[in-house]
């Protein structure tokens, strides 16, 4: 049986699991075990088959099912690009299902989660498999609606209802943009199959317009600034395994849509469009992580950090476009591979971190970091894997996040080869923005880890916390191990990704795995090389050397005592640094510009026993300057149009008359 048939079978099995979910939701335990267990098994089968297709470099296959539009049918295909994204989707799906086997126990409304969860997984798989515009849009909407239902799972909280509403609006907007983009692509002939679109010639202005529409449509799903507003509301509102899927996987499906259309269906792009993509990505990365730094809700912090990573991915997409437009095939392949690598990495560590946040939530009942602290003593395993995820997402060696960012920097360094002045200047500037984002990400995760897991407990919630169940732990340990594996042996991952670049761009990086010492040399050895294995081994060897030396030279004795703190011990744990306090220097340096941040201190007069208060003012400029005026405008127009409903019969008749005359006039002038 071909891999494509297996994948479609898995989708059908997931849809069947959704039906089981409806039936079994009344008995929570049975429902949980059957739905998540089945989903985990089906996702693992789909994962193995997709990974096999990718590694064996199977030729693209296509199946037409007699569903959907009668004259079109439903086309599904499996090529290296979709195989890779299936790996991302199903790896995330399998891990989330495994996690939910244990975590789902804390769900108080299982009937609102169990039916939609497998449907959501099926939708994401279908988007990646779809090979005509109709089934693509249909599965895209199915994915959006299923995830919307999951966001609304805890709909009794007002914040979640608002999140669902904003999400629904933005998802419809995004699909509208995709609809227009596919309409332009299909042209007047109206052939919606991807194969036909790929062969048809596209006028340059249509190609540019389609790219912009895709940037709006896929970008709104992926969380590109300023289309990101729904993301930090919706992702944390869902149960944690769904948050992990939405952040780690669904944003990747959006990126898949962008790649499919722009790199596969459109053909050679114009260089100026790559500048737009670069600019959007370059702005998104630091802004996203600055939002995350201002946050004290752990899950929202992670959601904002997703926005940063989407920015990084779009930067490398823009780089690949820029090189491709100038026929620089090898740097284009480098940027493209770097981006796929980062897609894979982000799906791993973001799932891991959301699982960790879920574990903290189930152990303490808190998402507010300012009420946590000291969990490293109570949750030893979770604290280790969360630390691994934090290092990986901060792009620090020897973990995987560093490798993909290193590859992107290597691509940035090739920008002098570009002939256009605009790009020559833009690319280094975007590189500096990416370095800023990477440093801020490290700051953000020092804060997230330091406030949540280190220090003294800030509230009663943490003192009763205990380690989570085995399923959740296994689901966190696997991605942590994969993060280390991909960081230490990046050459293997890059080789697996190479056929995708050669398929879409016409060139690939040289094979990496035969190189000595398992180094990676993306372009040429004189230009730059990295060896994760040696660096990791080096660190381990020198750490153990210093440990042994210290053991031999120094006294091994340890005394415990109260904290020194320069003699100034503060007995109240609340006097520790808080999330807002930790971010204060960065808020003051960057926040004054980005958020018009201001700290106001109200100090009571001497003798008054009222407490002094510190108020932090932050303005979400995107919301206040774009969305709020837009919403006000729509409401204002609606109110004004409302008067039309209360006209007299003469009023209505004259309205009809005026409209008729106007239309006739227009027609007369037109023809």
């Amino acid at each position, binding site marked *: 049986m071909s891999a494509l048939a297996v994948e479609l079978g898995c989708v059908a099995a997931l849809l069947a699991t959704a039906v089981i979910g409806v039936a079994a939701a009344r008995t929570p335990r049975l429902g949980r075990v059957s739905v998540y267990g089945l989903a985990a098994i089906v996702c693992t089968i789909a994962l193995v088959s997709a990974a096999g297709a990718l590694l064996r470099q199977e030729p693209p296959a296509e199946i037409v099912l007699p569903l959907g539009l009668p004259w079109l049918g439903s086309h599904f295909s499996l090529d290296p690009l979709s195989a890779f994204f299936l790996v991302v989707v199903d790896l995330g799906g399998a891990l989330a299902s495994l996690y939910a086997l244990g975590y789902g126990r804390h769900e108080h409304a299982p009937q609102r989660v169990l039916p939609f969860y497998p449907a959501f997984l099926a939708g994401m798989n279908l988007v990646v498999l779809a090979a005509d515009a109709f089934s693509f849009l249909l599965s895209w909407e199915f994915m959006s609606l299923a995830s919307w239902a999951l966001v609304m799972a805890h709909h009794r909280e007002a914040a979640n209802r608002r999140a669902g509403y904003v999400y629904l609006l933005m998802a419809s907007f995004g699909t509208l943009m995709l609809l227009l983009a596919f309409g332009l692509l299909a042209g007047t002939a109206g052939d919606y199959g991807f194969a036909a679109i790929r062969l048809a010639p596209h006028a340059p202005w249509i190609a540019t317009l389609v790219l912009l529409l895709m940037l709006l449509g896929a970008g709104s799903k992926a969380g590109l600034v300023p289309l990101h507003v729904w993301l930090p509301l919706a992702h944390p509102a869902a149960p944690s395994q769904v948050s992990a899927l939405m952040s780690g996987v669904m944003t990747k499906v959006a990126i898949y849509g962008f790649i499919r259309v722009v790199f596969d269906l459109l053909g050679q792009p114009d260089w100026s469009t790559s500048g737009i993509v670069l600019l959007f990505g370059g702005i998104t990365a630091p802004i996203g992580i600055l939002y995350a730094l201002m946050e004290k809700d752990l899950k929202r912090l992670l959601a904002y950090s997703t926005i940063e990573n989407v920015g990084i991915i779009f930067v490398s997409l823009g780089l690949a476009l820029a090189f491709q437009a100038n026929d620089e095939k090898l740097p284009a392949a480098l940027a493209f591979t770097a981006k796929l690598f980062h897609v894979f990495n982000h799906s791993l560590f973001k799932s891991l971190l959301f699982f960790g946040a879920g574990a903290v939530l189930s152990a303490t009942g808190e998402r507010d970091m300012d009420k946590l*602290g000291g969990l490293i003593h109570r949750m030893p395993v979770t604290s280790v894997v969360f630390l691994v995820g934090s290092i990986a997402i901060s792009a620090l060696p020897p973990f995987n996040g560093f490798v993909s960012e290193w590859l992107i920097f290597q691509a940035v360094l090739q920008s002098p080869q570009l002939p256009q002045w605009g790009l020559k200047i833009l690319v280094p500037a975007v590189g500096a923005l990416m370095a800023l984002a990477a440093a801020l990400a*490290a700051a953000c995760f020092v804060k997230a880890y330091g*406030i949540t897991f280190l*220090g003294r407990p800030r509230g009663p919630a943490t003192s009763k916390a205990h380690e989570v169940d085995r399923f959740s732990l296994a689901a966190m340990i696997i991605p942590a191990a994969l993060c280390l594996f991909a960081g230490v042996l990046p050459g293997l991952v890059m080789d697996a990704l190479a056929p995708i670049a050669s398929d879409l761009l016409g060139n690939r990086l040289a094979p990496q795995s035969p190189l000595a010492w398992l180094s990676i040399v993306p372009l040429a050895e004189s230009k730059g090389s990295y060896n994760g294995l040696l660096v990791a081994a080096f660190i381990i060897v020198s750490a153990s050397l210093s440990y042994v030396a*210290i053991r031999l030279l120094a006294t091994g004795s340890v005394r415990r005592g109260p904290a020194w703190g320069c003699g100034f011990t503060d007995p109240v744990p609340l006097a520790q640094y808080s999330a807002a306090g930790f971010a204060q220097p960065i808020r003051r340096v*960057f926040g004054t510009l980005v958020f018009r941040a201001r700290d106001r201190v109200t100090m009571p007069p001497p003798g008054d026993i009222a407490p002094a208060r510190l108020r932090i003012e932050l303005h979400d400029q995107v919301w206040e300057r774009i969305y709020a005026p837009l919403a006000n405008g729509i409401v204002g127009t609606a109110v004004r149009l409302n008067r039309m409903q209360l006209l007299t019969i003469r009023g209505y008749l004259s309205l009809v008359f005026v409209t008729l005359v106007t239309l006739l006039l227009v027609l007369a002038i037109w023809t």
Partner: protein
Amino acid sequence: MDVITDIAVQGVQMLLVFALAPLLTGFVRKIKARLQRRRGPSLLQPYRDLIRLLRKDVVLADNASWLFRAVPYVTFAAIWVAAALVPTFATGLLFNWAADLIVIVALLGTARFFLALAGMDVGTSFGGIGSSREVMIAALAEPAMLMIVFCVALVVGSTHLSTVADHIASTEVGLRVSLGLAMIALVIVALAENARIPVDNPSTHLELTMVHEAMILEYSGRHLALIEFGAQLKLLLYVSLIICLFYPWGIGVFGAGPAAYLAGAALYLVKLTTAGFLLAVFETATAKMRVFRVPQFLGAALMLGLLGTLLLFVSKGL
């Protein structure tokens, strides 16, 4: 046989930075003392301090976790590896190919990440203030560092330190305005990263202005020794980096034989002494700035790096 020589040379490099780091710190302190008309401690004082710290007990705070005890080893290892990867007396060392300049910067980032976490572990206000300021300074220094890397890579076409040193030491590069700008930027970044005046004061205590010292306030005994040693290594690393990128003349070319290596080592010591002297003079002549002046100081480094890069686009000869 070649592999054995390679490993031997790499080993010598690792031991060299290991042995020289406290000496450089001692030298800077001595010159500073002389400039302030003090006699100053002996050049060997940093070694004695380290040995003294090794002999002392470790006093751990009651709620310090395993992370707090692991961090000194991890940060020290990361800094040591990074320092071993910067060519000092010879290029083309075995492990130079394992990592380029970006990796070295990122390794230092790993060390800082862990140190900042350790600052938060005990849960005192001083630790928090140190960590939060350290990450703020890092967020400003890293983009500037990348622009410097970019500028150098544009001239040389590589991020490999060995290639860069070989290329700049050859006659074909000559004097470049953009490299000069990048060098000033790197000096600024190095001052900030090593917690030197005017960004931070390495000899301060009990002040709200301290950054690095506040972060490591809870450390004692052998842990503190490792952290102090790491800081000294980091200073040596940055000085070696500046030498390697901008003054590599006389460095032993790979495979040149023991005589060239010895000459390279002697010249390296001379350069190190000069750099240490200049650092001491600079630190004596300037005052520490307020924490929130640092963004402007490091912003200048970023702008210099950007300017150097743009100059290269205007003319390959500048």
